[in-house]
């Protein structure tokens, strides 16, 4: 951040108001954070400088926010809730009966990124995803990176996500991760870091689009006062991207979206994207393979399919090859795929590249394949299969975050500073039993953004950012992404399955 104004009396008043709404007036932001934070470092606040001034790109919004009567904001929040319910923007909750659909809480305070920060992020994301695609192609072909000793071969080849079935299979354009969701966090120094790559079936983009729609509906005046980069064209870009990777020789490819069905937790997003792109939303039972080609059953007979945007995991795609008990997939799909008659996006076997045990090597991949130095760094990661890392981590468990290599969704992790002694000891035993199953990272003070907390007051809450990187003919990113927010005070877990919410994300054009 350059060009941030010095704390003025007015700005300090604003910051005061921001905290007073939570009845914490009179204490410095640092004190407030320290009392609740699991970490020592003061988090970076997206809207306010530590001295209390608004950051330059947030000044106009902060002024507007200050001018809003509390009742108006409360009313708008209720309106947003009612609308999300009526439109049915919900996610299904597993293992519960009828109508087990919940809203993901939406917060009306946007997360704003200035143009220059976004440009740097965008460049860094494109670089990273290019390297990841090159890596996946390499490990299913010549395996140069393994031969060069940059990544230990057994880390890749013995990984359960490595699919030997994909060896030697050529996919259009050499693109494997057509849609990548890269989770970005900002540390206490204000630096962006990649926390995680999602290269299998990343979700959340529908909330990015619906959140924007909601904000424009609730607060149109904000959009005439700010030049917010649009995101509405994401479905068009996605469709174009999917069509660009159709099998060679197909002039007018038919694209479908493959879902597990209405009971899947992300079903809303599947239906939404299919509708926005104007393509069929299919289930496994709607497709069949004949003569190594894929068809869908329609009211007018069988119709050829060229590209499958699948939203089910590898394991369920083809019961003849992967899980035989899967009812979600299409028998024979892999045969058609290996014959080059169908494109599957994302490709089969991308999971090996977003595995937490491979993540530490991504900066090396960027150097190896692109000959560039990484623009966005990783979070420092200890690999517990290494004895020296293991020793360090075991000695510092109360300060660190320990994650299961194959875990996802915020499950199977230990947040040292927030854990009890007993919890830490349980984890210590698990780590000692199978150290190779774990990695550890410093407990990051994720950046915070003002958020409507319980009781209707504004308070700082931790956030992350998931931009969606599309790779096909080109690599494209719709400006911004999905901002997730941990709604519980002090919590660092932003996953919707663990009480996280979302915000609209603005990239300012000027």
């Amino acid at each position, binding site marked *: 951040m350059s060009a941030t104004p010095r704390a003025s009396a007015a700005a300090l008043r604003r910051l005061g108001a921001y905290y007073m709404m939570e009845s914490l007036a009179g204490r410095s932001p640092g004190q407030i954070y320290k009392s609740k934070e699991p970490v020592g470092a003061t988090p970076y606040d997206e809207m306010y400088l530590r001295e209390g001034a608004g950051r330059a790109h947030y000044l106009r919004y902060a002024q507007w926010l200050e001018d809003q009567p509390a009742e108006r904001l409360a009313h708008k929040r209720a309106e947003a809730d009612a609308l999300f319910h009526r439109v049915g923007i919900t996610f299904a909750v597993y293992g519960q009966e009828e109508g087990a659909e919940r809203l993901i809480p939406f917060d009306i305070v946007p997360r704003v990124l200035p143009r220059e920060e976004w440009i740097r992020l965008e460049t860094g994301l494109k670089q990273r995803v290019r390297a990841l695609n090159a890596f996946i192609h390499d490990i299913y072909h010549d395996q140069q990176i393994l031969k060069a000793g940059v990544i230990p071969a057994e880390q890749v080849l013995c990984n359960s996500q490595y699919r030997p079935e994909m060896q030697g299979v050529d996919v259009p354009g050499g693109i494997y991760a057509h849609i990548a969701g890269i989770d970005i966090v900002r540390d206490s120094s204000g630096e962006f870091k990649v926390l995680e790559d999602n290269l299998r079936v990343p979700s959340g983009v529908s909330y990015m689009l619906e959140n924007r729609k909601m904000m424009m509906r609730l607060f149109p005046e904000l959009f005439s006062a700010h030049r917010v980069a649009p995101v509405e064209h994401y479905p068009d870009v996605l469709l174009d991207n999917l069509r660009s990777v159709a099998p060679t020789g197909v002039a007018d490819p038919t694209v479908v979206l493959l879902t597990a069905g209405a009971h899947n937790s992300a079903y809303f997003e599947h239906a939404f994207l299919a509708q926005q792109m104007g393509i069929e939303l299919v289930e496994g039972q709607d497709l069949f393979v004949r003569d190594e080609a894929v068809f869908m059953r329609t*009211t007018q007979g069988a119709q050829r399919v060229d590209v499958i945007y699948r939203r089910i995991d590898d394991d369920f795609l083809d019961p003849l090859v992967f899980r035989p008990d899967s009812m979600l997939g299409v028998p024979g799909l892999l045969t058609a795929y290996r014959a080059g008659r169908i494109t599957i996006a994302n490709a089969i076997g991308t999971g090996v590249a977003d595995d937490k045990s491979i993540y530490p090597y991504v900066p090396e991949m960027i150097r190896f394949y692109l000959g560039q130095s990484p623009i966005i760094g990783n979070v420092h990661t200890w690999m517990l299969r290494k004895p020296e890392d293991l020793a360090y981590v075991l000695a510092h468990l109360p300060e660190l975050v320990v994650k299961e290599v194959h875990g996802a969704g915020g499950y199977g992790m230990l947040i040292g500073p927030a854990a009890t002694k007993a919890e830490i000891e349980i984890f210590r035993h698990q780590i000692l039993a199978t150290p190779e199953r774990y990695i550890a990272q410093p407990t990051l003070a994720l950046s915070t953004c003002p958020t409507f907390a319980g009781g209707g007051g504004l308070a700082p809450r931790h956030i992350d950012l998931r931009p969606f990187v599309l790779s096909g003919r080109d690599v494209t990113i719709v400006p911004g992404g999905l901002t997730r927010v941990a709604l519980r005070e002090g919590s660092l877990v932003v996953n919707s399955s663990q009480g996280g919410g979302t915000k609209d994300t603005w990239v300012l054009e000027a």
Partner: protein
Amino acid sequence: MLSRTADHLYWMSRYIERAESLARLVDAHYRMSLLPHSLDTLALSLSATMTALHMEEAYRERHQVIEPRAVFEFVSLDREFSGSIFSCLRAARENARAVRGSLTSELWETLNSTWLDARTLVARRSQNADIGQFVEWVKERSHLTRGVTIGTMLRDEAFHFTRIGTFLERADSTARILTAHQTDLKPGADAGTVPDPFEWSVLLRALSAFEVYRRVYRDVITPVKVAQLLILRDDMPRSLLRCCKEVYQNLKSVANEQSAETERRAGEMHAMLHFTRMEDILSTGLPEFLEQFLANLRILGDRIASDFLVPPAEA
């Protein structure tokens, strides 16, 4: 379009139509229950109606006797009974949710809020839930759903399958209501004994035909004219002829390579109703006629399913 999508659309509209038909029946009987009138007549009518709709067995599992209030609650609000209005609204919404991408957002939101509101209503239901108000509301939601369908959907296959579902269900419902009241429609009833005007009003109101009858015939209510109106009038929206005409026309718009015989049968049903005379029906016997009609309708539904909705595996 996908066969599965067509199937969900078809059932979505059938369930909404069924919810409305049931709401009409409950409404008509409910009004009758408010009049100073023999409870026996009401119970008889309810019993005959439940039999025609294959609901009596499920009711008997819950209650010993036909008691109007219990019947109304059972048909309207029972969460466990798959044939209740509540269950129909749920099924309509579940089918819509499975293909929400193929619906206009207005149509999806209409069906979704109907379901959400119904759930709230049933959860809040007190001992004195106002059944009359509930069925009135269901009718309104059905009208709204139909209006949104016609007002917002592209006239493509999705629309035609939605309409086929609506009219097959409506034909089925009208035929069953007539079956339940066939004793009142015997030709002999015209002369001599004057039929119970309350029962007539139940039958006609259940089919939204009370005012229509007056308008069309400007005459006292006679069984033959009632049957004529509900079976053979082309301009009566819930008559068998009208429903068959709509099914046939929508079916023609979605014809595929294997559907010729199904289309022919739909055309035959339509032509038969179009050219037949009331006298012919009465000489065959109304019960026999209705029984045959329901059988033909069932075959037509099965054929539509196998031609379009759940085609046999091709792989």
